[in-house]
């Protein structure tokens, strides 16, 4: 970074543009090889399964190649432009990483218990709320979900593949 900016940036817009365009290219190649394997030409009964995706992948490759070219050679001034600064990035991660843990929780122990824990922890950790308030909101939302979905609309929500905590209180 040649120019000191007000805030430290994590990554520049230019770098992100290049990474995104490269990922598009990789995606295009994956789709292209996949559709060639399926058969991308004209079969006995008309166009084969890979016919349409093949052309789609071709357009992806072309358009993202242009985007890549523009990012690398034309829009060099975006090097100084921050895609995200350090502090906001920390904020984003503070939401994102707990959310991933929450979803892991949904898979393993079901949605009701993980939601209650997730909301309560989030409120205490980021919102600096008193424990009892956080626990009350967490439990409240979980119970509301249960009543709304399982009782009222009869749509079952995930119970947990590893352990079903609701089993303890006798709910199947």
């Amino acid at each position, binding site marked *: 970074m040649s120019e000191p900016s007000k805030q430290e940036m994590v990554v520049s*817009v230019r770098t*992100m543009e290049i990474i*995104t365009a490269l990922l*598009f290219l990789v*995606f295009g190649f994956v*789709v292209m090889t*996949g*559709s060639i394997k*399926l058969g991308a030409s*004209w079969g006995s009964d*008309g*166009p*084969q*399964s*890979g*016919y*349409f*995706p093949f052309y*789609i*992948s071709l*357009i*992806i490759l072309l*358009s993202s190649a242009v*985007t890549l070219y*523009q990012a690398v050679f034309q829009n060099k001034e975006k090097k100084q432009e921050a*895609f*995200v600064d350090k502090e*906001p*990035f920390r*904020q*984003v991660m*503070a*939401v*994102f990483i*707990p*959310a*991933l843990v*929450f*979803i892991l929780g*949904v*898979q393993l122990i079901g*949605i009701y218990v993980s*939601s209650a824990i*997730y*909301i309560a922890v*989030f*409120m205490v950790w*980021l*919102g600096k*709320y008193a424990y009892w308030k956080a626990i009350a909101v967490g439990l409240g*939302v979980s119970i509301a*979900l249960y009543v*709304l*979905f399982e009782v009222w*609309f*009869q*749509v*079952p*929500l*995930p119970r947990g593949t590893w352990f079903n905590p609701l089993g303890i209180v006798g709910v199947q």
Partner: protein
Amino acid sequence: MEEINLLFQGFAVAMSPFNLMLMLVGVTLGVIIGVLPGLGGANGIAILLPLTFTMPPTSAIIMLSCIYWGALFGGAITSILFNIPGEPWSVATTFDGYPMARNGKAGAALTTAFTSSFVGAFFAIVMITFLAPLVAKFALQFGPPEFFAVYFLTFCSFVGMNKGSPFKVISAMMLGFALATVGMDTVTGQLRLTFGNHELMRGFDFLIAVIGLFGIGEILLSMEEGLSFSGATAKIRSQIVWETWKQLPKYWATSLRSCLIGCWMGITPGGATPASFMSYGVAKRVSKRGENFGKGEMEGIIAPETAAHAAGTAALLPMLSLGIPGSPTAAVLLGGLLIWGLQPGPLLFVEKPDFVWGLIASMYLGNLAGLFVVLTCVPLFASILRIPFSIIAPIIIVICAVGAYTVHNATFDVWLMMGFGVLGYIFKKLDYPMAPMVLALVLGDRAEDSFRQSMLMSQGSLEIFFSNYLVGSITALALGLLLWPLVGKLTKKKAVQAGNS
């Protein structure tokens, strides 16, 4: 007038007490969704879709479309009181709405916004009432090549109307098409691009994409901005409403112009957001008090709000009559219709007139209900925004997870939703548009079917798309829009050269 008769039959369907109750519930939910950051019309409806599975289709669509109207109204509340656009289409409303609220005229600003929204929506609904049946009748003659040409036109107009890089629009759109092909091939029954993965056999459902892109992505973005709400308080007294209504008629020209801009942008998939900006820009240029725009001018609220609502409503015209949604929210509604086994398109008007006209009638009633709800309950909705973000954010993520799970009862989809959330965050920051991607994901299969059928008809020759006047002119129009950015670039270069010399 056949339409009027059918419309009155529609009112009879929509007026049942159960449906009227659903309207009120829908509008209220919609306003809440519109007010909350991270929940908008498209993903809000996507999340609530599973709750309507047990209802009869007409009631379900009435409730869902009312959520949409509510969300359109709700965006204005946060724009005016908090200077935070709850929805992208209400960004332009903040320009004059927030200054007006700061000058102590919050009540008048809100009344203006709601009334203009209602006028815009009403205009668009009248247009739908009379135009949609004609378009549908006309489209009954369409064969596969014509349908593909219309799809092509839809997608080309995204390229032509987007201000950013056309290549990014194309990349995002093609990503949507590619993801749509994953799973079972509808023609041959072959599995495609699943790479042996069982979870991918279901394919990528666009509802998951919508919840992730617009919901999770939006939460991540709001987090970055470090939201702190501080806003004007408002209570609308009936006296203010009357006084504002008395002033509104003198802006009839702005209203009418904004209605037309909105309808045009809604039918062609420009959408509500560009419509509101365009209308604001035009009003600023044309108005005698143009230099006061941005300081709290009533006209500056009328223009974007009318256009946004007209566009948001008009987006349902191609959805109903052709089966092509004009906006991501219309796409989600279309997804709902498909789930109930209703195939939107020209035949719907012939086969299910009760449903179509019930829906159209409910648009009139729903918007009226919306106007009533927002005018009376503003303080209540504004107080929702005072709930701190550290409570709202995890709750919205939980709701999104529930919404994503209930689409197919699969936890894998919840992971996918997070993936789409990251994608949405990056796309938003790098100016890759999300609407064309979502529409490509929705229409991918049908666009492909009509393309393959056309290719079968012509034995692989692209000339079929120019084989008669109808399909030829649609294709030509589409190609024109596709190449439009190129034309713009050339003329700009010339202008720069002329300026230099």
